[in-house]
């Protein structure tokens, strides 16, 4: 009986499936233990040194505003000028950064020569190469183009085109302008992609519609198991709207998308970050083990549920892109290969945290994060660690591989869990034909492709260096059984002969 019970207890112990509990960004007390972190190969969270620190926080009072900011929606950086769309107050604040401080230089609240002259919820601003300003004047249903002296140049109104549903009002929400003055706008209720206006102001259609994803099960369910009445009440398969857009220096548009279900992230159907080329295809490079989706694991809290919702994105000059998460107030940095560089930030009242993350911009490598609920702009500057990462990445992109490896070694001194550094050093070692050592580094970072490449060369040199002993061993393996067989045959023949002779 005792034995039986032991056996049953064994069974009981094995019933619960082997679940590797997520070690999320929570200490034993359930609170954040580290401000900056990264994910390792297993998708587990690794604390890291701070990549960015708060330089200063700009409030309405710091800028000397009489009416405090109200629901600011967007930031735009042009040179050393920072434009803040103070949407709730129908104005745009122009702030100049000088000697480390920010001073208010201009309040833009009207366009000369337009009707109406004032703005109604201006929600985004952009500036083209010639210095002309473009403003999304959302509730006036227009995009305004004006020169730097605020004289009206053009108004982009609701496209008079059959592809645009004329029953809907034109509510531009976000816009970008490319180097030749083409305007790409994101409008509320438009799910066909970005509304595109040519340089001369004509509407020429949409680009980059979110492709519709229909699973087979959805299709079967909708076609065979629902009645016509039910179907008309269900949401139809329509593409979703983008959340925000950014145009990089090469004219590629980065778009973020927040309308997806959590399970869509599993097979990367959601694609929260996209890089659109001129015909609207997603060409974002994803060379990491995990696609760029923000947080890989999280603790479900009553207020902050579900995956990261990337509200805004900004792209540095070296193609490193940085996204701003609304769910947990995180800022995620990704390199051009789609590998996460760092993540930091949280939702809180303290400095360096946010209440309502809404917009992110960069000035050089400094980051400016706008908080619509706290009505503040947090200015982040990279720490030594952050600068080293940028330096190594830049050096690699410009072909200085060995210098880059030295910088990565510096990074490793600060954070031994940094996979990208191991890969960077491995690549440099491979160029120096130190294949065995390169393999060690690639293995550390679980980089299979590069390890395989290094191993092929390693094996090749190994074979070439030891070709003589190898040939001897192989030959011996082939020849020895042959000789042994021959001897055995001969011996058998001799024995046969002996036997025959004996019989006679």
């Amino acid at each position, binding site marked *: 009986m005792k034995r039986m019970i032991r056996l*049953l207890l*064994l*069974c*009981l112990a*094995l*019933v619960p499936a*082997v679940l*590797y509990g997520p070690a999320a960004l929570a200490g034993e007390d359930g609170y954040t233990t580290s401000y900056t972190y990264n994910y390792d*190969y*297993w998708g587990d969270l690794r604390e890291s040194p701070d990549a960015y620190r708060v330089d200063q926080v700009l409030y309405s009072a710091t800028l000397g505003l009489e009416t405090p900011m109200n629901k600011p929606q967007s930031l735009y950086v042009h040179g050393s000028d920072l434009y803040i769309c103070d949407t709730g107050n129908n104005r745009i604040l122009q702030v100049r950064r000088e000697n480390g401080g920010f001073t208010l230089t201009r309040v833009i609240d009207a366009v000369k020569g337009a009707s109406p002259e004032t703005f109604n919820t201006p929600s985004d601003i952009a500036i083209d190469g010639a210095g002309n300003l473009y403003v999304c004047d959302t509730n006036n249903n227009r995009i305004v183009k004006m020169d730097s002296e605020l004289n009206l140049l053009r108004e982009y109104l609701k496209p008079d085109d059959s592809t645009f549903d004329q029953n809907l009002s034109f509510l531009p929400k976000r816009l970008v302008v490319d180097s030749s003055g083409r305007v790409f706008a994101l409008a509320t209720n438009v799910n066909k992609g970005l509304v595109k206006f040519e340089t001369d102001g004509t509407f020429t259609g949409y680009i980059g519609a979110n492709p519709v994803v229909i699973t087979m099960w959805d299709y079967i369910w909708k076609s065979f198991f629902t009645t016509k009445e039910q179907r008309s009440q269900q949401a139809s398969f329509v593409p979703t709207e983008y959340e925000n857009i950014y145009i990089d220096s090469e004219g590629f548009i980065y778009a973020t998308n927040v309308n997806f279900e959590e399970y869509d992230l599993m097979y990367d159907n959601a694609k929260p970050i996209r890089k659109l080329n001129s015909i609207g295809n997603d060409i974002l490079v994803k060379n990491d083990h995990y696609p760029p989706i923000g947080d890989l694991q999280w603790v479900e809290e009553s207020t902050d549920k579900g995956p990261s919702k990337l509200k805004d994105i900004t792209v540095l000059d070296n193609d490193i892109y940085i996204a701003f998460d609304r769910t947990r107030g995180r800022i995620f940095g990704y390199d051009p290969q789609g590998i996460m560089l760092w993540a930091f930030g949280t939702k809180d009242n303290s400095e360096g945290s946010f209440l309502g993350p809404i917009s992110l911009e960069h000035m050089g490598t400094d980051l400016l994060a706008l908080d619509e609920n706290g009505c503040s702009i947090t200015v982040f500057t990279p720490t030594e660690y952050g600068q080293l990462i940028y330096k190594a990445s830049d050096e690699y992109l410009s072909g200085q591989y060995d210098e880059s490896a030295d910088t990565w070694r510096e990074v490793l001194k600060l954070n031994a869990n940094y996979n990208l550094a191991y890969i960077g050093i491995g690549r440099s070692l491979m160029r120096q034909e130190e294949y065995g050592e390169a393999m060690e580094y690639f*293995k550390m970072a*679980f980089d*299979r*492709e590069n*390890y*395989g*490449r290094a*191993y*092929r060369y390693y*094996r090749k040199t190994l074979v070439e260096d030891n070709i003589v002993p190898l040939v001897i061993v192989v030959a011996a393996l082939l020849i020895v059984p042959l000789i042994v067989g021959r001897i055995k045959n001969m011996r058998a023949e001799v024995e046969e002969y002996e036997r025959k002779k004996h019989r006679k």
Partner: protein
Amino acid sequence: MNARSTESNAAPGSFRAWWDKYIASVRYGKHVIFRPFDGFWDLVHEHRGTLGAAHTFLFLFLLTYILKLMFTNFQFISAPLQYINIYEQCASLLIPFLTLCLSNWCLSTLFDGKGHLTDIYMAMCYALVPFILIQLPMILLSNMISFDEAAYYSVLNAISIIWCCFLVFVALLEVHDYSPGKTLIFIFATIFGALVILFLVLVFFSLLSDAAAYFISLYREIAFRLY
């Protein structure tokens, strides 16, 4: 051991006789995997297999699996070694294996299957031999090829598994003397039966813990009343 010394010259019942029979039955594994229809019939009905050999194969199977997790090059397998518990891994193979044997026996005895529980267990263990023979050298191979040559690795992997599955099918067919169609149906029924067994075990333990909780609370209640 139900092994009987039949071919050995050693005295019946001696260790030597048992050992000779054991070695012969282990070697017989080679015959079984290459000529399964003939092999599995003789294995059970002509008593050419022994339980000792079956245990050996099962043990080697578990060992191969663990070695595979530990020593396969990281290019081909991503086992989170820092989390792996060997006992847990063994149990995750052993428990389903034994449950399936039990479930198959439960069902086949009801539908005129010829096999005893030991026969089924023995045949199933012999069916694992290709896995051992292929996967063990594959551990070495994985450390000699690069990521681009992963095709060789995955083909061998697939062969070992398909071969084992085929052997399981033939084993059940021969042990129970079923027709192929009936065997196929019984394989699915066996999987279902295993789930039922799992369910019963779970229910049993949940009831047991409820019963235990009842008596514990009864004891507490009485203890509170008395003091």
